[in-house]
């Protein structure tokens, strides 16, 4: 992956992977998967919050 336009290429690659994962699922099931995946995001947001606060203290 060329470093120059990595932002574009990486975004496309991420979307391709996500689409592949949801392929063939009903919209309801896709929403269920998205909700579960959101828990990971919440945990990571919390980790960033805790570590930034601790480092700033």
């Amino acid at each position, binding site marked *: 992956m060329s470093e*120059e*336009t990595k*932002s574009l290429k990486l975004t496309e690659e*991420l979307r391709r*992977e996500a689409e592949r994962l949801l392929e063939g699922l009903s919209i309801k099931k896709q929403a269920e998967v*998205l*909700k579960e995946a959101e828990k990971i*995001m919440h945990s990571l947001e919390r980790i960033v919050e805790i570590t930034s606060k601790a480092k700033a203290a």
Partner: protein
Amino acid sequence: MKIYLDTNIIIALSLPEDYFHRDSRLFMEVAKQADHKIVVCRQALVFDFVLGASKKPTRLYDIPNYLKIIKTHRVKIADVDHLELLKLAAKYHEEGIELKLGDLIHYAASTLLQSDFIVSWNERHFNEKLARKISEINRRIGLKDIKATTPKNILEGKVR
């Protein structure tokens, strides 16, 4: 003005060597000075960053860095309903918008968050022509019109 950021701008902001890094930073500065509200959608980010890491789970380790970038640039992470988001993206697809789900989700998120603009470095997938088609669908179902452009066009005052 409410501006919705596509994920490639967040990624460009996180990569100093990226071709779009400098202009992305400049855009964020200008947007801040102009007092524009900059938003991203949590569920659309989850689609890209978490589901997008399904094949290469180590990519999950990049997410805290993206979140820091979002925080540093005071971008608001807004929520939409999961099902509503996916249904609207599917509606765009059914109505003949020739884009993949990943891009349609961002058009849908931007619409549901009532943004004035969706900005992206990907002009092929986020442009005036496609935004006009999306707006026609939105109008029919009582949703807001949407415009799509690049940060550079906004910086150069080509769109208002």
